[in-house]
Structure formats: C-alpha cells, structure tokens
C-alpha cells in the first residue's frame, strides 16, 4: 500500500496543492469577512467627471496644491494632512501651521516614493498635474489619487461637498458649499436686472495673455457680470495684441498678479504700480476703461482658487459700483478667513479704485 501510494504521482501532487488550496479558501473567506467589517466606500465624481469609488472614512491625505489645502483647512481637517507640496513655503504666512508637515515634491511632479513612505489613504491633486503616472506609481501601495480642482467657480461647491463626505466632515462641507452658493447667488440675483453688461478685458499673469473660456479668470468675469472680450475664444490663455484690445474698447480691465502674497501686504503700492504701468502702455490712453480709470489689479490669492468668490465680489463691485454699493468684499473676505479658515483677516488684495464708488 505505501508503495502504491508513493507510486501514485497524482496523490503527491494533490498532497502538495491541497494545503495551498485550503489556505487560499481561508484567506478569501477571512478577506470577505474583514472587508465586510471595515471597508465602506462611496462613489464620487472627480474633476474629469468619472465616477470613482473611494474607501471611507479617509484618515490621512497628501495634498499637492494650495487650493485643496485651503479647502481642507476650511473643513477643519488639518489633522488629516500627512504630507504637502513643496512650494508651500511661498505661501508660508498663510499656511503657517502646515510648514512642518513632510514635503512630497512639486505640485506638478510629486515624488511617489516619499508619498508611499507616508502611506496616506489618498492623494489629492489637480485634474492634469501631476500626470497620470502618479496613479500608476501609487496603486501598488494601495494609495488612491483623487483629482479635484477647487479652482473653478462652477464646480467648487460640489467638489467641497464631495471632499466633506470623503473625510467624514459632511456637515462642514455642506455649510461651506452653501456659503459659496449664497455669495454667488446674491450677485446673480442682482445681475438679473442688468440688460447691457459691460465689456471686460481680463489679463492673466503674463502681459497680453487674456483669460478665455476654460480659464478661472473667464468664469470670474462672467460671475461678476462682465462680458468677457475673449468669450468666444477656443484657447483658455491666448496671447492677443494691444491693437485688438484697443479696437474692442473694453469698459473695464482686470489684471491678475502673482508676485508675493496679498495676505502679507500692508498697502496697495504694488497693485497701483502694476495698474499704472498697464494704463501707460502705448496707445492705451485710447481705451475707454483707461480713460475712465477702470483698470483694476487683483492678487492671485483671490484670483481663481477657493477664494475666487471674494475676487468675484470685488470684480462685481468694480464693474457695477452702484448696484453693489452695499456689498463689502473686505467684510466677506474677513468672514471667510475668520469663520472658515480660522485665521485673522489681514492683507491687501486689489489696487486702489480711482473711478470712485467702492473700496
């Protein structure tokens, strides 16, 4: 019999595989049980409009840009931030409490190894930066990359509510989302009565690069009740000629600047200088907006991003000084910083208004 058994090759093979099979069955059974015990997931829509499943609650996050960091602070989720983008030092005063968190590289090219080392539940990044290689690099570690923008006015409230759900701060997310909606509604309701909207030239950070559809600057202009000179453009940040701007005769001009940080400014000198240089461009004295002192320069802190709504209020007030006479952008900014960000209001964010009417 023993000989018979030892000669029976199939038995040996079965003897080798059977324990393995049993272990596999046990593991999968346990796995299902474990999954049943803890893993709960929700389906959300990311910046691409894709429906993706996220395991909740998310207990640790690596943050790859200032926009999401600002939103997380608004939701009171500072403790969840395990790692941050390296350029945070440029906003050091604004994000002081995060300066000691581990840095994981650039907003557009993060270091997957450092992120893997921190082992967060998720990484939150912009729609297109860093590239999709980050997902490939982090998926073996079970780290999910979530693409949410938080800089487009049309989607920011929805994205905030989504983030609130993911991190178990649903109520805070709803409150903040509603706050955005309320501020924008106030403007939209008043704009309903406006028949002829003024023509606005919106210049991005580089000279003569305008903000067309698809850019945050365009959205801000439209929400503020302006008719963007570039509203039919197919390119978000197209270069235009001075001649074209002059020939279109905009009623109001807005320019974004990104030097230093409005949060740390004590006066308007910088913004005023940028405005004056812009108005002094060759032949710009022929433009209606320049003649009427309606050139305004805004800080990058309120230009797109989570505080774009404050930029919109400033813009609406500068476009329609009478219609929004009672609206105080500084007060709204103060409310946002003190109630949501929980930091004291400070800084200067816009050039002096030479056309009179508003701050």
């Amino acid at each position, binding site marked *: 019999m023993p000989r018979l058994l030892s000669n029976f090759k199939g038995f040996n093979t079965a003897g080798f595989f059977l324990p393995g099979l049993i272990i596999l069955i046990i593991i999968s059974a346990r796995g299902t049980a474990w999954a049943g015990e803890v893993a709960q997931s929700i389906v959300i829509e990311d910046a691409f409009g894709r429906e993706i499943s996220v395991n909740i609650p998310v207990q640790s996050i690596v943050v790859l840009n200032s926009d999401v960091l600002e939103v997380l602070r608004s939701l009171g989720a500072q403790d969840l931030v395990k790692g941050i983008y390296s*350029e945070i030092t440029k906003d050091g005063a604004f994000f002081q409490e995060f300066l000691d968190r581990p840095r994981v590289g650039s907003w557009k090219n993060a270091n997957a190894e450092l992120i893997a080392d921190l082992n967060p539940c998720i990484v939150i990044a912009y729609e297109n930066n860093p590239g999709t290689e980050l997902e490939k690099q982090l998926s073996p570690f079970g780290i999910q990359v979530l693409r949410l923008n938080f800089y487009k006015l049309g989607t920011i409230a929805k994205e905030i509510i989504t983030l609130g759900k993911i991190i178990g701060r649903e109520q805070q997310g709803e409150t903040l989302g509603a706050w955005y909606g309320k501020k924008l509604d106030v403007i939209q309701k008043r704009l309903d009565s406006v028949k002829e909207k003024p023509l606005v030239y919106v210049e991005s950070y580089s*000279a*003569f690069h305008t903000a067309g559809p698809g850019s945050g600057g365009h959205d801000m202009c439209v929400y503020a009740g302006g008719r963007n000179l570039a509203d039919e453009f197919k390119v978000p940040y197209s270069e235009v*000629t001075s001649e*074209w701007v002059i020939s279109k005769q905009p009623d109001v001009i807005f320019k974004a600047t990104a030097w230093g940080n409005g949060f740390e400014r004590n006066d308007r000198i910088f913004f005023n200088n940028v405005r004056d240089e812009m108005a002094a461009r060759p032949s710009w004295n022929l433009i209606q907006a320049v003649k009427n002192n309606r050139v305004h320069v805004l800080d990058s802190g309120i230009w797109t991003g989570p505080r774009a709504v404050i930029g919109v209020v400033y813009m609406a007030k500068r476009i329609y000084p009478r219609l929004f006479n009672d609206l105080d952008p500084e007060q709204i900014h103060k409310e946002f910083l003190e109630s949501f960000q929980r930091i004291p209001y400070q800084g200067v964010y816009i050039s002096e208004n030479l056309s009179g009417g508003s701050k």
Partner: protein
Amino acid sequence: MNTDCLTIKNQDMKNQYKALKYRSLVLLVVFFGLLSVIVVIALCVGASSISVTDSILALIEDNGMARSIVWNLRLPRIIMALLIGIGLGTSGAVFQAVLRNPLASPFTLGIGSSAGFGAVIAIMFFNGLVNEYAVVTGAFIFTLLSSFIILGVSRYKGATAETMILTGIALMFLFSSLSSFLQYLGTKEEVHGIVFWFFGSLSKAGYREIVMSGIMILIPMPFMFRFAFDFNLMTAGDESARALGVNVPGVRMFSIALASLMTSGAICFTGVIGFIGLVAPHIARMIFGSDNLFLIPASALIGGVLVLSADTLGRTMWLPHVIPIGIVTSFIGVPFFLYLLIKKTKEYW
C-alpha cells in the same frame, strides 16, 4: 605662352567673380525689395478695422486712432522684428563661419539657454511676470555670462572651433537643466509665465526696447563686415588663414563676443526665437554662396524677412489670437529650408 595662359585664366576668374558679385548685389536688392513689401503689408494689417489707406496715411498725417495704432503699435513691432531678424541672421552666419560648423548658431553655444535661465530667474525671484525689465536684465546678464565662459575656456585651452562648440554645448545643457530645475520649483503662475517667455513674443516691443536692442544689434554690424574677408579665409582652415596673415584666435574671440551681444540684443526683449540664427544663414548660403561679404548681409535680410513674416502671420492669421513667434518662425522657415535643401543639386556648405 604660359604667362599669357595665366593672365587669361586670372582674367576669367576676375570676370567670374565680378559676375558673381553683380548677381549677389542684384539678389540683395531683390531681397531688400521683398522685405520692403512685407514691411508695407505688416503696416497695413492688424486686429483693428483701420483701412489700408488710413494705415499708410497715418505715417504722414494725424488721422486720429489710426495714427496712434500705426505709430505706437504696428511700427515698433515691425522695427523690432527686423532688428531681431538682422541680429539672429547675422550672428548665426558669423557663428557658422568662425566655428566652421553648419550646425553652429546662437543656441548651439548655449546663448539661448543661458538667456532663458536668466529670464526664469527674473520671473521667479524678481517679479518678472510684472516687471519686464527684470526679465530683460536677467536674460542679458546670463547671455553675457555664457559668452564670457566660452571665451574664457577658449583663451585657456586655445581658441579652436572645437573647444568653443564643446564648451557651448556643455553650457547649453547646464543652463537648460538649471531652467528646468527652477521650473520644477515654480508655482503654476510662474510656470505659466516661463512657458510663454520661451514661446517668444513681440507684444511688448516699444521704442525704448528698440533703442536698446538696436544698439546691441547694429553697433557690431560694421565689425562683422570688416571681418568678412577673414571669415572667408578661416573657412579654409585655421592653418591656411594663419598663413595668409589672419589673427585666427583674435578674430574668432572678438567676433564671437560681438555675435553674442547681437544675439542678446535680439532675444532679451522677446524670448527665445532660436531657429532663425540657424536657418537664415543656410538659406542665404544656398542662394548667395559662401562669400561672407554677401553672406552676412544676406543672412541679415533673410532673418528680417523670416521674423517679420512670422510675426505678421502670427498676429493676423488666427485673429484675435496671436500665435507665438517662436512657433510661427519654425512653421514657415522649416518648409522653405527643406525646399531649398531638396532643390539644391550641389553641396552648398
């Protein structure tokens, strides 16, 4: 009998050279005419609805807005485009002649990359997004720095073409890497500004910029003509040129320094428009031959034609968008260059 033969041969050669000279002069006039036509076209087209007649009248009389647009916006842009074309075309021809290399251009010697690095530093650390003179200064300083390094190494190791080209290529990679490193650290606004600077643009051209650029580009021109004959001798090799009395290292170092200054004057104000410095001298060589006496002015004219055509097309063919000049110069220059290259039956270099 033999003396007679030689005299006849010499006479033949002289006649041939005279004919060649005459042909080249005629071609130069033709290209000058072509350039003038493009200038007039560039003056008459734009985003505003000013008529052609009003555009031309604006040059001599005050016809309101048309005058302001022509004098303040179109004319400075045209002059700047011409200066850039002249600067890059001439410097490219000089680099190719003194380094005896068809691939030599301001960019082979790292001058474009160093200017780019200077601009990146200015954008990131000196408010270059708003203060355009910070960018100009940064680009200028680093252009000169890279030229000094090339000249320094050449002085130490002997001013041979190989030393200069290899040093230039090394610097090109160094400054490109440094620019990439800083871009890596940049915020999205800074990266935005840097990308646009590298595309090149003439939107900020004004008379002040023209004066500064003009000084750097036009002052070295007479020296380039003065050395044209020496360049001809140097193309036959350093030894031959030396035997014929040319101070090869001196001419090479001095002309490289001047050509670098011209390149700097061309790209500091507008961003990297690299391709012109390489292709304009080649187009000129295919049409005019290799005599630097004609090759240098021809490269300047062709550079002017290319840059002005590219800018005029770039600002009018997709109104109201402006297609960056760095992109359009390649769009129009490469097909033309390839056409000439295929059509040319003889080896021209």
